[in-house]
């Protein structure tokens, strides 16, 4: 069992959990993820390791409450336990000194972006960061990203914080300013990564994306997480989760992410029956 040190909100419906997992804490590298199971009847869900403390034997996870599993996580309190956690999984990020790296994070995608950008910074890269979200309340890790960035710009869809627009506007702005970009990192919703990749292609920029397909075992056993990369089937859990964005079939990823939508809603509605708090959220309309 894995004890929870804290589990606190950092933005609207986004929480930061620190949990005791000594083996994982000592082994993990930027880009690695874990598979966890909230309770005995829970699913296996992947989450990127945001940070770790090998001395304390803890890892940090950040998640958005969107479905039964993440709401279950959200209800955990300090001193509670996670049923299971396994890792570190996936290939770690290929980190080298590229020069100037533009790190683009959308919404809760800023969480997996942080360790990778940090690794890139430590390797001597100049980090120019673009953070985006629908509104001010959904921007996370601005301070932490600021500490490892040489330049940081925030964009919101509704203009409630930073500049008004999408992260693609942010990238366009950098290109227009004549910034020499050696690598783009983009992590966020599949649709965001798709359009950032499209823009990168138009400007001949190399781009790394981190994919978030549905997974079950996370060790290459089932193929639930298969993605089309360069026309071939790859397993995000063992071949990724990071890939050359130009090779990724995002439209397929977007369709596959919706595969269980009907079941996710059914499950969450049932779960909401037990928790008024979740019910209130649902009444606001499931995205």
């Amino acid at each position, binding site marked *: 069992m894995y004890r929870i040190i804290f589990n606190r909100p950092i933005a609207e419906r986004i929480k930061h959990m620190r949990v005791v997992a000594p083996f994982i804490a000592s082994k993990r590298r930027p880009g690695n993820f874990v598979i966890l199971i909230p309770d005995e009847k829970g699913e296996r869900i992947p989450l990127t390791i945001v940070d770790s403390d090998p001395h304390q034997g803890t890892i940090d996870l950040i998640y958005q409450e969107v479905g039964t599993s993440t709401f279950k996580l959200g209800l955990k309190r300090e001193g509670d336990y996670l049923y299971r956690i396994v890792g570190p*999984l996936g290939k770690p990020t290929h980190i080298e000194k590229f020069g100037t790296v533009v790190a683009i994070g959308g919404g809760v995608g800023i969480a997996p972006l942080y360790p990778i950008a940090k690794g890139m910074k430590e390797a001597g890269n100049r980090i120019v960061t673009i953070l985006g979200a629908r509104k001010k309340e959904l921007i996370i890790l601005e301070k932490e990203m600021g500490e490892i960035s040489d330049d940081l710009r925030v964009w919101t869809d509704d203009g409630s914080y930073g500049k008004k627009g999408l992260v693609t506007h942010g990238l366009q702005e950098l290109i227009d300013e004549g910034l020499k970009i050696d690598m783009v990192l983009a992590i966020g919703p599949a649709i965001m990564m798709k359009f950032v990749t499209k823009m990168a292609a138009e400007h001949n920029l190399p781009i790394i994306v981190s994919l978030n397909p549905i997974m079950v075992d996370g060790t290459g*056993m089932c193929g639930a997480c298969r993605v*089309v990369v360069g026309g071939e089937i790859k397993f995000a859990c063992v071949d990724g989760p990071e890939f050359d964005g130009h090779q990724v079939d995002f439209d397929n990823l977007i369709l596959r992410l919706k595969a269980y939508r009907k079941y996710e809603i059914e499950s969450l509605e049932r779960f909401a029956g037990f928790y008024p708090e979740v019910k209130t959220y649902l009444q606001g309309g499931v995205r």
Partner: protein
Amino acid sequence: MTRQPARFPEELKKKLRARFNEDWRKELRRKISVKERLAIERVAMPENEPMERIKGFFEVNKGYTPEMAMEEARRCLDCANPTCVLGCPVAIDIPTFIKLIEKGDFIGAVKIIKETNSLPAVCGRVCPQEDQCEGHCAYVKMGKKPVAIGNLERFVADYERAAGEVEIPEIKLKKGKKVAVIGAGPAGLTAAGELAKMGYDVTIFEALHEPGGVLMYGIPEFRLPKSILKEELDYLRRLGVKIITDFVVGKTATIEELKEEGYEAFFIGSGAGAPWFLGLPGEELNGVYSANEYLTRVNLMRAFQFPEYDTPIPRGKRVAVIGAGNTAMDAVRTAKRLGAEHAMIVYRRSRAEMPARIEEIKHAEEEGIEFIFLTNPKRFIGDENGWVKQMECIRMELGEPDASGRRRPIPIPGSEFLIDVDIVIIAIGTKPNPLIPQTTPGLELAKWGEIKVNWDTMETSIPGVFAGGDIVRGGATVILAMGDGRKAAYQIDRFLSEKRD
């Protein structure tokens, strides 16, 4: 696939001969004549009704009663040269255990089986007996149905558990040496059990959150109830075996790092867990599954109890399973139980070449599974939501035999046709999981990523690291994996004993 030739080692011959000549055996042989024995019909396995059983996941076979078992045991001729033993990958002393059943000594019988097979309740259920012990039975040569060795094995194992008489063998002197077993499937569990009995301090590292390997995530409840697996695992724990789940060797820690933790020998039984896909267009569509994913969702994650359990599985109305092995049968029969109106096996060869056990095929037929032979998919077609809706197939005919000895299927040009589907399950086999080979420098591999071993010792290219089961065979059976685990355990003992000086 590498197959070990069947041999009758001198030692085994001696043991069989000595028991054959014991007075009680002679007595039993005299009691009923061969002619009378030959006249007894094979006792059919009692089964739950097909239309009842497809409503749930309970076990199909109900098992023999003691009377049925003794009746079936009487059929065994107690041959002087028991070829059935040669057909058994772990050389169980079959005639002795059957004759003990005839005598009514069921506990004695299970003890004989357990000399070489620590999981008889599992093997009695999932072994392909028709290719092994029963395939070598003297009755077969006479054109008759073989003695139901598998049913008898299952009976005594179940009898022992029901009687609560599962004995924990006395552990000899503790050796004070740590052995790591990687993977809690049939190979690993067997190796761990044997090593624990020898007095080693054994820890099993399992990647998933439940031990059992394919017995847990692959084989469904209706063929192997999980309660049986749980009892076998309890037995191992009582032998002192430690099982650490959620630990991916190669990721959580490497073999090298475990060595630093004091483990002096290793057994890798990580299995052939990586699924093959067909490489056809549309395979990335929603609704197309590997058998591994489909079965894992249902068996390990209990998706059949969704939404009480959180993992979902779509309940398809028209489910096509590609392949005709045991896994394909498990998948298609699971789909039927999840409410499929049409649960289909699509196989490129004909009925005669199907690799599944005869019993699985029979059960599938009884349950209304549709078999579409000499047919191969060409591509999968999706709807506007990216969900599979049709499968374009081509008819096949059989040509000359290929390397496997089976006639090669050849597509018939212009014979393409469409099958409506809402779920496709690909069950064409698995390959070794690459995680350990990738993270263990110096480990030599064969063509498809199988770990190379010396077949006499099961030792890999790294001294002190042994391997067995599907990670070396690439996709075989539970009993072969168990045989490897057992053999490796003795070799690990030899290795560690020699290492002392």
